């Protein structure tokens, strides 16, 4: 079993672990971490594909590697937005629980409406 295949299988395990954590963890910050673990697993799959596409004097296919860089940056932005939401939720309500609150959500009063 060569390196790319081994890392590819490792990636599969990471995806499974991340997905499990995403579904099961009650704390949103843990969910965000699990999302990152799952994302890294998926990125590993792409890097394995890039390595298998080595040729023409390059160590790996540059197109999937370029896609990876884009995806890494976008995943960071997503994590930043998610963390900002968690922190604001904590500031507003004192808790980070995602289960339905006691009262159903009231419709918002849009600006300009009384």
């Amino acid at each position, binding site marked *: 079993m060569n390196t790319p295949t081994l890392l590819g299988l490792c990636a599969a395990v990471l*995806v499974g672990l991340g*997905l499990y954590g*995403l579904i099961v963890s009650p704390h*949103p910050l843990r*969910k*965000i971490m699990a*999302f990152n673990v*799952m*994302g890294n697993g*998926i990125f590993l*799959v*792409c890097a*394995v*594909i890039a390595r*298998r*596409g080595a040729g023409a004097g390059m160590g790996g296919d540059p*197109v*999937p590697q370029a*896609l990876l860089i*884009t*995806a890494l940056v*976008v995943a960071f*932005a*997503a994590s930043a*937005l*998610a963390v900002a*939401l*968690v922190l*604001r*939720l904590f500031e*507003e*309500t004192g808790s980070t*629980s*995602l289960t*339905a*609150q006691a*009262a*159903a*959500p*009231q*419709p*918002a*009063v*849009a*600006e*300009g*409406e*009384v």
Partner: protein
Amino acid sequence: MPTSVPVDLTTTGGLLLVFAVLLPFVGLMLGFVLGGRRAQQVAWATIGLGVVLVAAIAHQLWVSGDALVYLLGGWAPPLGVTLRADGLSVCMMVLVMVVVIGIGVYANGDFGTPDGMREKRGALTFWLLLLAVWGSLNLVFVSGDVFTLYVALELLTFAGVPLVSLDGRGETLQAALRYLIYALAGSMFYLLGVFLLYGAYGTLDIALLAQRVGAEPVAWGAAALMTAGLLAKTALFPLHLWLPPAHAGAPAAASALLSALVIKGAWFLVVRLWVDVFPGVVTLPSAQLLGALGAAAILVGNVVALRQARLKLLIAYSTVAQIGYLFLMFPLVAGLDAAQMNSASAVTGGLLQAVSHATAKAAMFMAAGLIYATLGHDRTADLRGAGRALPMTMAAFALAGASLIGLPPSGGFLAKWLLLSAAIATAQWWWVAVMLVGGLLTSAYVFMVVVRAMAPPALGWVPKVQVPRYQQGAVLALALCSFLLGLAALLPFDVAQIGRGVLLSSGAR
């Protein structure tokens, strides 16, 4: 230049597609820099230019009778990225334009920056995110590359999530976070499918993938993963749990944007993938599974909607149900293909369902916003007086409801007619039953709301706020669009099929 596949040369007017994608984002950046109430003015200027642009694209499509294609950077696939607009894309772009204008007119009342304040957070955010949703959807409709579509999905998520928590209350922040987690998980699954497709076939271009994809395990895996991810983003049963609190908690104009437009992006991608990339890969049983989930959504969504105590939650659950109709088209398309019949009518039926639902649901949410402003609450048990105070709005609600139920001459009627014909033609009677039951349940809660609203108010009751006529006018205009869409049956051609013959003929069958 690398040698190009004949179907991928830039066509005349292809540059318009680039403008269609970038114009909203240029407006976003300009509005962001100028800030304050100028953001609203920039948004309207951008919308004005956008109307001209969409008209030009539609005209070009009509004149050339073929899809518009643009090679970005001059590089042809598989190395480069293309933009491709066929009849399906252009119809959706026109839909988004119409709904954005309607929501924009309505939002002039809710999200104007008051005098004396330099910049208001809610107003600035709304106008910037309106432009962002519009631009992301345009990208979803015209992108010809599956990875660019991933970036488009992320753009759509980043534009939609802050709309949910626009008012900053605890419940909406929670709903936004739940939405974000579902949406991000969905994007990751989609991305995984994209990588597997590249690993197996060496290209990310939709047209080339259509040629190269075969019925093998890697393709099945990729199709399953991508579809699962997109189902989470379009809130199809059983992944719909994030939608009702998110759409009901947002301000009315934002709810309209989310329910009418944002979730259509992911649905459009499922259509694009299943009908254009994977037709030879997806089997009839898997299409039936998708249809079964749609049927479950219709039944569960409508039944739960009937039990809602608040109007906005009722409308949100109605959205969950109507999304189910959008997925009934898949077993019908697969069935028609399997029977060697033309599946174009089923695709057009799905498209019409999307268009009529978008306009009707936008009108409904905005009507609910006006009712809330007038009554001070939106409890479905106490709607009396709303009809007297807001006659135009209640008429609009009734017309929109008629379209959702499927009464002629509405777009909903024509859509269900096409889907029913397809179901009968392929002897899939169970979908006929589902659609009829769904229509009955929808009519139950639409009538309930309208009848209660038409009841006379208590003596001496006055509306809390006098809502401006133009807001009611915008709501009525959108509802009429949905209600009169059935007249499209009079058109002598099938707009949705323009430019799709190329992909169909090169698809693996």
